[in-house]
């Protein structure tokens, strides 16, 4: 279920602009990997290239090799739609589908992908995903009400439920708590801890305490200046990155000193 991702010399472009340069890293399964770094250094860009969401943007493309358990995601003939079915994603701002009820939101991925399943099974999948996202108790009595009627934190957990209902191998999260209050943030951090038993989890965060709290390994990205591409500076076990980083740059960032 949980798979390993390996990036080899990945360059990521927006048209002519090279946003991320020469990133090589290994993301281990059944673990939480955090991406940290200053704003604009390409964390989101790199994350979106992991499930081929990057190319949705006009003119955007990727060079290099990206392996999911050894299979090249950017190999010839690979259908990005198939990639995205295996690598789920949660966005910075909660984005439930406004025309759908809570239950329909959870099942959206399956239904829109033509998975036919009997009503009983749908109920089971829905409950399992919502339980997985720690939302079941809060919404079990109003599954048919609109998803947009939930609070921000609940909506974000609904989006997580929607992603894990697809039973992906990997779950990517782009600053999933940045629009949420501290209590909801805590709920999601707890959830991440539970999910890592079954999924490969990658989380982008601006919040270094959060990275330290939830992740097993941490990757630090940085950017030389505006217009320059972002680079992976250093990656390692979270404890080591936060206590004894190898690079001065990482230490400066973590201790709050820049430049």
């Amino acid at each position: 279920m949980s798979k390993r991702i390996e990036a080899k010399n990945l360059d990521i472009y927006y048209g002519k602009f090279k946003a991320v340069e020469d990133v090589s890293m290994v993301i281990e399964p059944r673990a939480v990997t955090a991406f940290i770094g200053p704003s604009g250094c390409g964390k989101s860009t790199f994350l979106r290239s992991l499930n081929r969401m990057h190319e949705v943007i006009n003119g955007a493309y990727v060079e290099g090799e990206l392996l999911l358990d050894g299979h090249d995601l950017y190999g010839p003939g690979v259908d990005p739609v198939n990639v995205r079915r295996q690598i789920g994603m949660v966005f910075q701002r909660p984005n439930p589908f406004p025309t759908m009820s809570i239950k329909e939101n959870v099942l959206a991925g399956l239904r829109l992908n033509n998975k036919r399943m009997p009503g009983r099974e749908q109920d089971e999948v829905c409950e399992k995903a919502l339980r997985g996202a720690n939302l079941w108790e809060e919404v079990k009595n109003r599954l048919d009400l609109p998803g947009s009627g939930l609070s921000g934190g609940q909506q974000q957990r609904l989006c997580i439920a929607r992603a894990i209902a697809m039973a992906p191998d990997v779950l990517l999260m782009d600053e999933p708590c940045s629009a949420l209050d501290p209590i909801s943030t805590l709920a999601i951090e707890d959830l991440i801890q539970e999910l890592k038993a079954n999924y490969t989890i990658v989380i982008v965060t601006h919040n270094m305490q959060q990275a330290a709290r939830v992740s097993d390994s941490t990757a630090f990205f940085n950017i030389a200046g505006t217009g320059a591409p972002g680079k992976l500076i250093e990656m390692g076990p979270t404890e080591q990155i936060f206590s004894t980083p190898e690079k001065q740059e990482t230490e400066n960032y973590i201790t709050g000193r820049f430049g």
Partner: protein
Amino acid sequence: MSTATAPRQSAQAPVDNPLTAGQLPSWVTIAVGVAALAVSALVFTLLDTGGIALIVVGAVVLFLVVMHIISLAVEGSRRAVDRLAKHVVVTMFLLALLPLISVTWTALSHGINRLDPEFFTYSMRNVVGAGGGAAHAVWGTLIITGIATLISVPIGLLTAVYLAEYGRGALARSITFFVDVMTGIPSIVAGLFAYALFTLVFGPGTINGIAGAVALSVLMIPVVVRSTEELLRIVPNELREASYALGVPKWKTIMRIVIPTAVSGIVAGVILALARIMGETAPLMIAAGFTQSMNTNPFSGQMMTLPVFVFDSYARPGIPREPFWDRAWTGSLTLILIVMLLNLAGRFIAKRFAPKTGRK
């Protein structure tokens, strides 16, 4: 000294509150309005240049000026200007409402005479004087605009989807350009186009319901494209990305996420376009023609429509004229009623499908 007594003291001396300012009680507005009307009526009657319009205009001007002066004196300049702006806005609103009320009233008062079952069940076949009806025209309008909608909505919707979701580069730009040009086509040209097209394809003098519907489609398509495109563009990109991230293909994302999110607005746009073409007269006279009898077959024979019926009854009445003119008014009233019903239906549909009503 104690803090508990402080609020009570200030409550006992409200006069000292530095935040108060002069205020006009609301009856002043009404009194000034009535007075202005009275003065204006008196002046214009004395000058013997009466006429309701003049009196009302005089009263409004008088009211605005007097109110402003009073307010300036009592409330100060900021609130006076505020009041003036509010009164001007309300005046303009009433002004805009005037033609609407007038049209509705005129059509209703003249049209009510013949608003009877016979009007909706009889055609004009073998009718020379009074009696008869516009059943043929009502059916013609419904059939022709119905077909025009069936042609325009798929074409317009898909064009809009192309422009909003796929289009870029020269092709999209040229489509946008031609749609804009089409928006400006005079309706009579659309009629001539349909007539010429059907003459070319089916031989000279092919005038029927379909030709009329094609003429109306030429007018309806650009409106549908424009309104739908705008609505698709305001669907947040996040929803598309959320759908892609679930591994949903693009076409399905458009069909199941983007369009449903915008559907209430799209329906409203279509209804507006429909209401707009329903009153078209010139293109239908050319392309759909004219008849006194019922014809519900759009593929053959000329077909009557309500606007053409109204025009014909008014412009070429028989003798006596009154029954013809009565029928013209009732025809207009019927057209207004149909458009109104369409708008109501549109609202209902829009409500029914609006987002945030997650349904099974």
